[in-house]
């Protein structure tokens, strides 16, 4: 589904990703772990197409499409979702209005009919309920006044509503207490654990992986994947530390 080959990304002229290769097949959940500064968020932003993240070499194929040639909104319409480590606050723009416009823009790009207001609200309510976010919060301005945990729940509600085929989740577990972690983990499984979907979980810690069991675990260090293994690799990292395992 996603094939990253020899990816090099520079930010402000400084190389961050230095030859990263990775392949995800449908039905798989991959975890990428690594120390601070390894390039984890840079990978997420590069795949999302954030301005300022300059790809200097390599390629990314998403189901036969050159992902890097698409603008960010077109990547979303193609089925990609980026879960932000720090979801952005947008004063004055209501969550539901923005999501409805976003969903319908995606549908339009795919040649599908727009969802009616009623159908959209039904879908939004179902996802909000599943993630424990009230409809009142869904009508508020995007992430404004939300706690850290509420912002992360909102990311998952958005993922549920947009229903992507591939999700790149950047430290979705950071800043969450144990209860929220369980809810988020359950959300990821419900929305994305499907034969035709795939997930790339970017995380510092093993604990999210207790709830979302990865098929593969990769260690990212110095801008490239230095080790790949099964779920047991996450436990080894937790025990031994990155310095040991990535060396």
């Amino acid at each position, binding site marked *: 589904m996603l094939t990253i080959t020899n990816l090099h990304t520079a930010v402000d002229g400084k190389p961050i990703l230095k030859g990263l290769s990775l392949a995800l097949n449908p039905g798989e959940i991959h975890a990428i772990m690594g120390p601070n500064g390894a390039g984890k968020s840079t990978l997420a932003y590069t795949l*999302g*197409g*954030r*301005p300022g993240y300059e790809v200097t070499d390599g390629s990314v194929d998403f189901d036969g499409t050159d992902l890097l040639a698409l*603008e*960010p*909104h077109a*990547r*979303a*319409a193609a089925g990609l*979702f*980026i879960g*932000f480590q720090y*979801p*952005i*606050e*947008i*004063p*004055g*723009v209501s969550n539901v*209005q*923005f*999501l409805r*416009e*976003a*969903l319908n*823009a*995606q549908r339009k*790009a795919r040649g599908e009919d727009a969802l009616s207001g009623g159908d959209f609200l039904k879908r939004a309510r179902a996802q909000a309920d599943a993630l424990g976010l009230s409809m009142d919060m869904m009508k508020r*301005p995007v992430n404004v006044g939300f706690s850290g945990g509420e912002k992360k729940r909102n990311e998952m509600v*958005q993922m549920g509503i*947009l229903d992507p085929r591939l999700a790149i989740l950047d430290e979705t577990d950071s800043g969450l207490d144990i209860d929220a972690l369980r809810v988020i983990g359950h959300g990821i499984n419900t929305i994305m654990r499907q034969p035709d979907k795939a997930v790339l979980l970017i995380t510092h810690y093993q604990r999210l992986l207790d709830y979302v069991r990865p098929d593969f675990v990769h260690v990212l260090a110095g801008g490239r994947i230095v080790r790949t293994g099964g779920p047991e690799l996450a436990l080894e990292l937790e025990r031994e530390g990155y310095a040991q395992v990535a060396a």
Partner: protein
Amino acid sequence: MTALPTKSEEAWRYSDLDSLARVWPVPAAEIIEVPAGESATRVIVQRAAGDAVVVRDYRIMLRRGARAALFVLNAGGKLGRIAIDVTLAEGAHFELGGAIVGGSEQTLEIVTSVSHTEPHATSNQTVRSVLAGHATGNFLGKVAVARDAQKTDAVQSVKAMLLARTATANAKPELEIFADDVKCAHGATVGELDKAALFYLASRGLPPAQAKALMLQAFVAGAFVALDDADERAAIEAQALEALEGLL
């Protein structure tokens, strides 16, 4: 006949006098007088086409305890100028919500002169401008507080958003205070659209123009929050959105 103003006159300093000359002399001010204890609301939408020059003057007199609320969308013409001169008696309130939306070579301005002549009157002015191309958007707001006008509370909040480096926003507050127990606050900012927010919206599937429209719509709506009638508010917001979409 009055002579054509020059740039040395404060209230015309940033205006487009060449365009003004085409329509000079302009009609006399419309007078709005609100009797004691009563209130009036006016919604003014200026979206003249093309090269039109629109200059409108309002003279508002608020008697004791009266209230006037003006909501302005100034978006049309080569030169669009809305000038408002307000006199407040004791305990009166003046509310202004102004939006300026312009592009190409437009000059759009809102010019206010608010005189607190008696105690306990309040005024609140909120102006939001979105400027693209080579447009110039001006807000000149003068607040005068007379010696007797103790306990005056006057607020100005002016924010402008520039969509291009070639656009210009001028915000010029002017305070003239002769009483000693008053509150006069003003804030002015000029900024650009938040790039991180635009990327966030794009990552959810919104094309750039739609993402910008959504954010600008929210920004401009800040000028109309005090408009109580929900239908009127929706109508002026829809007009503003249409004008905004013309810039993107």
